[in-house]
């Protein structure tokens, strides 16, 4: 895995916010701006969706992204593709090295399937996405919540077609940075999952920063 660092100075960011464990976040990143997510304490999964800010039906498509780049893992150079075949974001720096986009987000209902019927009460990413949509983006709803990116998450696929969840390749302070290729709405659920190692069984905050185009 190739790592690549950024030269951008956090002191010069035009936007800087911490998203607490289990919380949501949405914001429009303007074309040309640079968007960074920092895994502050390590081993955290940041479930993230992207939409063309002016046409939300032209949204991030995991399967188009992996097919067009011919690889299932996201890292520096990856173009995050939309349903219409447009590039929403380009990953320009990555000190983690590998991010997942096949594992999707947790939901109360899928937690029941995966862990136990009694797990329904537990906080889950899909609930965070729905609340963000309801409160901040009335033009988005359940049908717009599709397969997301899991930044900092490690979900290896084997040549035999098996899928596994493994300990993160991330660590404290690792980050991923991307350039908006159009005006893009970013929607994040900072994953509250406590049933598997995707957050090291201890969900922690992430930090989001935005820099203007140079």
């Amino acid at each position, binding site marked *: 895995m190739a790592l690549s660092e950024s030269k951008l100075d956090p002191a010069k960011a035009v936007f800087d916010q911490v998203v607490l464990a289990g919380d949501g976040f949405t914001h429009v990143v303007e074309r040309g701006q640079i968007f960074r997510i920092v895994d502050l304490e390590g081993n955290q999964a940041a479930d993230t969706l992207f939409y063309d800010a002016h046409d939300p*039906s032209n949204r991030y*498509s*995991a*399967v*188009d992204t*992996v*097919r067009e780049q*011919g*690889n*299932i*893992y996201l890292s520096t150079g990856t173009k995050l593709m939309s*349903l219409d*075949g447009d590039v929403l974001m380009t990953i320009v720096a990555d000190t983690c090295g*590998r991010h997942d986009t*096949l*594992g*999707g*987000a947790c*939901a*109360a*209902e*899928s*937690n*029941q*399937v*995966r862990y*136990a*019927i009694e797990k329904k009460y537990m906080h889950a990413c*899909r609930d965070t996405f729905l609340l963000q949509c309801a409160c901040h983006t009335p033009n988005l709803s*359940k*049908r*717009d*919540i*599709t*397969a997301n990116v899991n930044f900092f998450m490690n*979900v290896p*696929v*084997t*040549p035999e*077609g*098996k*899928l*596994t*969840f493994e300990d993160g390749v991330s660590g404290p302070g690792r980050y991923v940075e991307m350039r908006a290729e159009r005006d893009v709405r970013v929607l994040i659920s900072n994953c509250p999952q406590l049933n598997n190692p995707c957050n090291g069984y201890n969900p922690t905050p992430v930090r989001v920063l935005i820099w203007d185009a140079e």
Partner: protein
Amino acid sequence: MNESQLILEEALRGGQMWSRILRRGQTLRLTDVEGGAAVAALFYNAEDPSERYNMPDTLKAQHIARLTKGFVLYSDMGRVLCSITEDSVGWHDTITGHGTAAHGRAKFGEGTYQKLRNDWYRNTRDNFLVELGKYDLGKRDIVANVNFFVKVVANEQGALSFVPGHSRPGGFVELRAEMHTLVVLSNTPHPLDPSTVYEQKPVALTIRGGAPAGANDACRLSRPENARGFTLTESYYAGRAS
């Protein structure tokens, strides 16, 4: 009704789209008559299409990155839309999506209706939009689909490669609806198939009557996650006639 009574046989031409609501327990068999077909598929709860096939939930519940007999198709609501009850092919893709008009033009050149009439080069995206439109669904309802008869493997580094010649003549896969399920199909080339000729492959569809998964069903027992998935599906229909 006899458990496996024949309800419908239908031939799908190459390029053709199709849809139907399968009632719980009905089976749909897709047969790749000549080999080398690719059928893209989407699945919805017919009573509430906001509930639909969910690729990530299907993969992570079963720890798989492919589909075959014994696995099930999960909705985003933790329920089983369809089970895969038979499969002679061994691998069906669900991680590489489908092609658009732009993919088709780049690979096959122009294949317009004006020039070719009903042999024109239809593409999966447009077929999905048309067929979904018949149920007042649209682009926002297009999610990661299943690609029957298609095999794409990832190596250790995650690099994808399409496996040519994967589906042999007569290869089949059979689904059993565990919910009242709207099935939308498009018999159109997969965008990773390296062939630059727009091949129109016939696919045969057979629908039979039957019952949903029983207590000793192989898909239910294949792993504890699926047992819970069936429990949640049955509780959704609890207290209703069907």
